[in-house]
């Protein structure tokens, strides 16, 4: 199987371990991830707060390149990139005049053939292959954290239940982990304020990490580089924002990408999955053998 791949900026920099682990998992499953040739910035937050047409034209060029390269489906690991690419596709497919305007700007044709997948959609597509590859079930209690852009807006409908998504829960269950029920699955981590107003991010993310810890999670699982940055890299700020006395128990819970969890369950060693790049060290005790892997969908409440 062959899928297109759009790394975006984060996969080459701050969250390169996400790309490393994704590629590791893909190759084990015999899947080729083909990078879109000459891709460009998705525009992210900056473009769409300033200029609507620019915000559409940037992703539109990448979409057009993917189409030219004959890629039917493109996997986009970053939630912000996913939102921009899938959102642009949706908007242009529903407004013929706008599509004309944007294709004039990028001076390329685009017909809307390429579909955009986030990592959860992609992994669920290939989930049938997973059980055969699981050699070391990830027998830990985990808090699956979705954040904002994986479930919203509804028009993109990437997750079936926008207020209580279960796609990631199904995946971790398929590799032997036990997803907990918790309250902060889709709450805001503070996102891009990470740079400009770190203290806001610390305040918001502290509650996410606290709830996960209080409800007995041993690790938090994410599918978005921004979420990872805020929950992992900003952990010192989170601890500073926590009420005194409660800090130590928040310090040690690691934050893993979904692809890292799957990779570990496949028996990949930590280094190729980039676990050493995390700020909060990933030290999980040996998996208790009691949790057996379950095929996706079976454990749904």
């Amino acid at each position, binding site marked *: 199987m062959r899928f297109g791949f759009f790394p975006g900026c984060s996969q080459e920099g701050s969250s390169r371990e996400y790309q490393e682990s994704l590629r590791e998992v893909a190759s084990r499953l015999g899947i080729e991830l083909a990078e879109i040739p000459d891709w460009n910035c998705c525009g992210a937050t900056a473009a769409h707060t300033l200029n609507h047409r620019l915000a559409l034209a940037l992703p539109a060029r990448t979409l057009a390149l993917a189409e030219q390269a004959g890629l039917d489906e493109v996997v986009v690991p970053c939630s912000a990139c996913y939102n921009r690419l899938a959102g642009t596709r949706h908007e242009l497919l529903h407004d013929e005049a706008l599509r004309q305007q944007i294709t004039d700007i990028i001076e390329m044709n685009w017909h809307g053939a390429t579909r955009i997948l986030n990592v959860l959609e992609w992994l669920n597509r290939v989930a049938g292959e997973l059980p055969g590859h699981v050699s070391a079930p990830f027998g830990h209690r985990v808090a699956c954290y979705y954040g904002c852009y994986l479930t919203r807006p*509804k028009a993109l409908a990437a997750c079936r*239940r*926008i*207020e*209580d998504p279960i796609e990631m829960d199904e995946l971790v269950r398929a590799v032997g982990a036990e997803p907990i029920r*918790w*309250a902060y699955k889709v*709450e805001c981590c503070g996102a891009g304020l990470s740079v400009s107003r770190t203290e806001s991010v610390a305040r918001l993310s502290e509650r996410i990490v606290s709830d996960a810890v209080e409800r007995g999670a041993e690790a938090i699982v994410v599918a978005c580089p921004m979420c990872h940055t805020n929950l992992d890299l900003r952990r010192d700020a989170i601890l500073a924002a926590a009420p005194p006395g409660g800090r130590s128990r928040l310090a040690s819970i690691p934050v893993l990408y979904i692809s890292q969890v799957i990779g570990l369950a496949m028996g990949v060693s930590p280094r190729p999955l980039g676990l050493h790049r995390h700020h909060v060290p990933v030290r999980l005790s040996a998996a208790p053998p009691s949790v057996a892997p379950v095929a996706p969908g079976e454990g749904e*409440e």
Partner: protein
Amino acid sequence: MPRIGVFICHCGENIGATVDCAAVAQAAGRLPGVVHAVDYKYMCSDPGQSLIKEAIREKRLTGVVVGACSPRMHEPTFRRACAEAGLNPFLCEMANLREHCSWVHEKGEVTTQKAIDLVRMLVEKVKRNRPLTPIRVPITKRALVLGGGIAGIQAALDIANAGHKVVLVERDPSIGGHMAQLSETFPTLDCSQCILTPRMVEVAQHPNITLYTYSELESLDGFIGNFRATIRKKARSVDESLCTGCGACIQKCAQKKIPSEFNAGLGRRTAIYVPFPQAVPNKPVIDRARCTYYKSGRCKLCEKACPTKAIRFDQEDELVTIDVGAVVVATGYDVKPTSFFPEYGYGEYKDVITGLQFERLASASGPTLGEIRRPSDNEVPKKIVFIACAGSRDPAKGIHYCSKICCMYTAKHAMLYSHKVHDGQAYVFYMDIRAGGKMYEEFVRRAVEEDHVRYVRGRVSRIYQKDGKLIVKGVDTLLNSRPVEVEADLVVLATAMTAQPDAEELAQKLKVSYDGDKFLNEAHPKLRPVEMNTAGIFVAGACQAPKDIPETVAQASGAASKVAGMFSRDELSREPVVAVVNRQPPPVWSTCVGCFLCETACAYQAIEREEIRGRDGSLIRTIAKVNESVCQGCGTCVALCRSKSIDLQGYTNEQVYAELLAL
């Protein structure tokens, strides 16, 4: 020679702004056979109708074409005007220039040209129209009312008090509906049961009302004035004529932990049960799915306990056929369950309940005898949060419409809570307060000002459990616009009001139309609010749209008065749009060859056999004959007739071909 008059209506701006009506009239005036053509602002108005009447008299018109709105809207108006001027009403036709032209096209020459084409078609048709006379049909002066909630009760009583027979059908074991479940009613806080139960008794005792509870409509055939309803009386497993309602069977029943529907799941009932003590009739039914005897073949405790030997384990459903002249549909509503809301805990938190469940908590006849105690541990909640618009006005996750009654009952709930728990605090999260109605706004203000209910304008994004509390995360969008969290003991969701789960099935049984939300459609949203598009079927209450008790009662009385008005006549006249088998002078008699393919095709059993006999009584031929009081004018037999011997009056093949060839 035909002398046709053409009358083009502007319909105010509706047609006039898009179609050049004067040009249409001019063009129509040049059509062969047209001797008079004018346009006017409102042809349906009195001066407009006078234009038609005068022209008929002065120009000796033999046919009239009115280019205006849909015939559904005003065909009766214009046909009546023609009749008043001495022209047979069936020589008047309407060209639909509004729905079929101006409303669906942009202004322009092409649009005007289309309007001219539509008029030309009808001119060609009307030249071939024949005078027809309406068919007279008798009326069965008995009404069928479906649903025994307050809407059905009111409609049944009003029709019965007007002197007509009523059959009231309710599918639950008792009448009373949702209103019987309510505690107090806004805006007067009078007790719901106190005002309802006397009406329920009146229904049971009224000499003109036949009550079928635990029964459902199986099918409805026929047409206005002459329906035939089949009612399924579900087996109660109890002989009603012997049962005295003593309740001995209920006390002995082995199954005691079945969630009570009447208490919205908060109380328990037995397998043989009466839904509530004030039930009408006060006779139990056996819930066969839950009964030990029906499940295991052993038990019969109720039979042993019954002093009158009224238990009938082998009773079967009974089908009853009744002829009725009119039907009132009053089948009510449902509410979304808490399990509909993932963000509010998927129905997994015991202390997140619906408004209907709160009614039972607050009701003196409820599981807590009117004390507000939360379901999980029976404690009195000290902090209670009411969430308005739970699912309503939410196209993304719920339903798009406003459930209409929630603002008011939420204010009432918060008020009742404050009256019963003096040291408690009530919060209401709301989007807007919609309190239109007599004394409604004043009622809400009273909750805020006198009962100190804290109204927070904002949505609740999530509820989760923490340390025995329900954390309600929301936002206050007024003043400093900040996220707020309330640690609540009990949360009440004003969940959206929806149509009954089987509303669509019922509508199809009745052959009436319904909207995308499965609410039944009235015939006109403003001017025909209680009639439906199928003649003789009327609608009342929340099966049509969310509404409160006063509105429901008003609509029910309206429907009843329509039925009484219909029953004040002895016969109805029907449009003569029926199929007719041709007859010819001897020796042909008719071109019908007697194949009776039409009989197979007819969905209404309207085809009969007619024997043509000679003077000596010998049988010459057997041909088809249409029973005009049964025929619905669908035309299926016309299409199927191999010898082209059947035609539809008013829509003959000749007329329809003429219309098409004019294009």
